């Protein structure tokens, strides 16, 4: 290294076989920077980022499907904790993932900034001088003509300008260059990627996303506490929520009735009314998949739907202690759903029911109750009953879809078999020992709505569009230089030389030269006939 000759005294005393002296911090920083911003490093980082994206598509991700993550952890006792430690359940928010893309963007900046400076200089510069030997260029043509050198030169300037070249006349030669937009596009593309990352970041910081289950006939007001799930960025404040409210009146669902896709959903439509703020009048909207409702900066989406059977529960005193719809989780084929009814107010003991809801019920000998079609052709609930302590007052949070039966006793028939009954709408099951009764009143549908707010979205979209434009320019604009030299040669005839240099891959340079030559010929003919200018202006009018 050249640096070793600049070393100071003490280092000179070293044994010559020893490794070269350590770099000083500044040198090391400069060396690191050069390595980081080299194309080779950029390629490696691109590869790393690509590889890093793979596990997130194979290992279940908390963000996309927390239930499957829990299932995975339950099934892999050894692997699970390790995956957790390596952030494999949350790859795209993992520190190592961020490290790669941040390094990549630093490398990108280190490449784009000097290149932008160089490109600015190029944009201000004039096309370079013509080489002495034009016939040594990758493409060249030469011919002689009777037109004089000056008029050939003038024609060449006109032809090249018409072809959008930047033209410079120096002596007997003309230099021309075009395609500056190629590098501009390249730089715009890379800058747009940085803007895209910023847009994503703004959305993550200031945005929020929540989902809520709304049963037909009930409503929702946009406050953090009304959501079933809510997530927001670090810079988000509760007061940022748009104060809208909505009410779900009816949910229409249509399914495929026959064929090999029988039961596949065909249409969902949620008929709702909403108020953008508490003071405005209600407006109606038919919410469908792909047709979100925009309120202020928020968007409301129809994500999923299911059934909420309606129950009336009476306790031993005969009083109604529960009355209303209970959403069941649609986690079985053809609309089959699971859920529980918790009745903490029942006397003398709290009551709990776990059950299945089948919209079109049938009994399978192996599987028990199943559904054969997702619409309500033969709706039935299948219930078991429990009494004791539901544990809802214990302070330990519990799922509304699960019954914690540790402190409960299953209610049994006189013969000791568990109490179980299939109920059609308006049918009732009475509990032994005068514990009360449960009535299946009917069924309503529920909609899972998602509300999202992402202030970075317009930025991200704009950046993506900019990136695409830059990409197109950088791939399809051709950067090339053309030189024309016209000299009076032997016998008073003019020797014309045209040469070209393409700075981009792909051919077409020879064609370009031939077209320029044809253009020059046209000009010469015009000059010869004495009506020279006729062609030029006519072209310009086009």
């Amino acid at each position: 290294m050249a640096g070793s000759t600049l070393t100071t005294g003490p280092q000179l005393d070293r044994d010559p076989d020893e490794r070269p002296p350590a770099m000083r911090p500044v040198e090391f920083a400069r060396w690191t920077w050069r390595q980081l911003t080299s194309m080779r490093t950029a390629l490696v980082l691109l590869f790393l980022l690509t590889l890093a994206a793979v596990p997130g598509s194979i290992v279940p991700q908390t963000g996309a499907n927390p239930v499957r993550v829990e299932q995975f952890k339950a099934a892999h006792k050894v692997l699970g904790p390790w995956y957790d430690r390596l952030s494999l359940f949350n790859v795209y928010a993992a520190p190592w993932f961020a490290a790669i893309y941040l390094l990549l963007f630093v490398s990108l900046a280190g490449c784009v900034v000097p290149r932008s400076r160089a490109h600015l200089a190029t944009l201000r510069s004039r096309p370079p001088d013509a080489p002495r030997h034009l016939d040594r260029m990758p493409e060249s043509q030469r011919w002689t003509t009777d037109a004089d050198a000056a008029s050939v030169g003038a024609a060449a300037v006109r032809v090249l300008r018409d072809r959008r070249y930047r033209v410079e006349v120096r002596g007997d030669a003309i230099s021309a260059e075009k395609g500056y937009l190629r590098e501009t596009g390249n730089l715009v593309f890379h800058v747009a990627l940085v803007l895209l990352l910023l847009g994503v970041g703004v959305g993550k910081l200031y945005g929020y996303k929540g989902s809520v289950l709304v049963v037909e006939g009930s409503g929702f007001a946009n406050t953090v506490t009304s959501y079933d799930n809510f997530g927001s960025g670090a810079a988000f404040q509760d007061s940022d929520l748009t104060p809208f409210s909505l009410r779900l009146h009816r949910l229409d669902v249509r399914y495929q009735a026959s064929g090999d896709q029988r039961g596949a959903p065909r249409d969902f439509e949620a008929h709702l009314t909403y108020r953008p703020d508490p003071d405005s009048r209600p407006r109606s909207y038919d919410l469908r998949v792909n047709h979100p409702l925009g309120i202020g900066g928020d968007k409301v989406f129809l994500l999923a739907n299911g059934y909420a059977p309606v129950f009336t529960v009476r306790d031993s005193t005969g009083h109604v202690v529960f009355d209303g719809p209970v959403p069941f989780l649609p986690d079985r084929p053809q609309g089959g759903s699971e859920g529980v009814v918790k009745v903490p107010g029942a006397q003398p003991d709290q009551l709990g029911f776990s059950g299945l809801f089948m919209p079109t019920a049938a009994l399978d000998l192996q599987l028990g109750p199943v559904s054969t079609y997702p619409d309500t052709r033969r709706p039935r609930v299948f219930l078991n009953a429990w009494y004791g302590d539901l544990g809802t007052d214990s302070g330990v949070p519990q799922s509304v879809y699960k019954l914690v039966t540790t402190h409960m006793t299953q209610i049994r028939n006189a013969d000791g078999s568990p109490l179980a009954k299939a109920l059609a709408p308006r049918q009732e099951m009475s509990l032994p020992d005068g514990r009360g009764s449960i009535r299946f009143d009917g069924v309503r549908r529920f909609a899972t709505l998602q509300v999202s707010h992402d202030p970075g979205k317009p930025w991200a979209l704009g950046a993506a569009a900019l990136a695409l434009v830059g990409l197109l320019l950088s791939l399809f604009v051709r950067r090339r230089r053309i030189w024309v030299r016209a000299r009076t040669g032997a016998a008073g005839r003019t020797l014309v030389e045209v040469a070209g240099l393409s700075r981009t891959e792909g051919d077409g340079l020879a064609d370009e030269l031939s077209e320029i030559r044809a253009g020059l010929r046209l000009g010469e003919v015009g000059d010869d006939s004495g009506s020279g200018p006729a062609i030029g202006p006519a072209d310009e009018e086009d």
Partner: protein
Amino acid sequence: MSSESLAGLSNDLLYSAMAVYAVAMYCYAAELAFGTPRRRSAELPDRELVAVGASPAYDVPGSTVATDEDATRQSKASRLGRVAVSLTVLAFALHAGSVLSRGLSAGRAPWGNMFEFSTTGALAVTGIFLILMTRRDIRYLGLFVLAPVLLTLGAAVTVLYTESEQLVPALKSVWLLIHVTAAIIASGILTIGFAQTICFLVQDRREHRGDGSPAFMDRFPDAATLDRAAYRMHAFAFPIWTFAVIAGAIWAENAWGRYWGWDPKETWAFITWMVYAIYLHARSTTGWRGRKASYIALIGYTTFLFNYVAVNLWLNGLHSYAGVG
């Protein structure tokens, strides 16, 4: 015509197209097997011109120039090639009719499940091949383009077949037209770029070893030309793929409330995009040009295939529209 009979017509047309594709493929293969090298065949027109002028050069005994027997064989082979192209056009027409009648029978864009993605994607490959053929002599690629087309259609009619039905609500959007069309066109171009890359790698190896085998590669352009052609395809496909990803993000925002959620399909579209981006960068980096860059292009196509087959069928995500029971 009723929806069912249109769907039936679509299937009949598809099987007919496959039969014609198969014959066309054999014709391309025969031309490769029996034709004479490209360089000599390029000289043929000159020789004919000279022959009119009765040049003495061809009267010299033992001349290295192609014999009459060679010429007859050559013209037979080239006739086979022309037949192959005509058959490809015919098969393309039948295939297009099949896709069209499928769309009419369902009353929507005919790409709502994996069977339909496959038939339309294969149609895009043939279509792009035919368009390219009007501009450049790429008949040599015929075998390598029709083979994947036929394989795709074979998988479509056997494993992936789904009856013509309406769409699930998530797919009912104008973005189905925009996003999926862009993805299908990009994949068609990438498929041809892939075929050219393979040809380049074989040709390049041949040129380095200099033993001339396999002999049929004589019919192909030299390695540098193949490399440039493959690059051109990839550079053409990359912005379209970029657009498909952006359009997909806009659609995802409209359907699911977020424009990017690292769903397996999105992740693999990103991976494919990245790999082709690496390819484009590698081509402008010293030490990576040529074979190394080409291997990256092959990896890119592999990730694309993985996204299409594995993600659709095995990795659970929001893009589960395969409709394969």
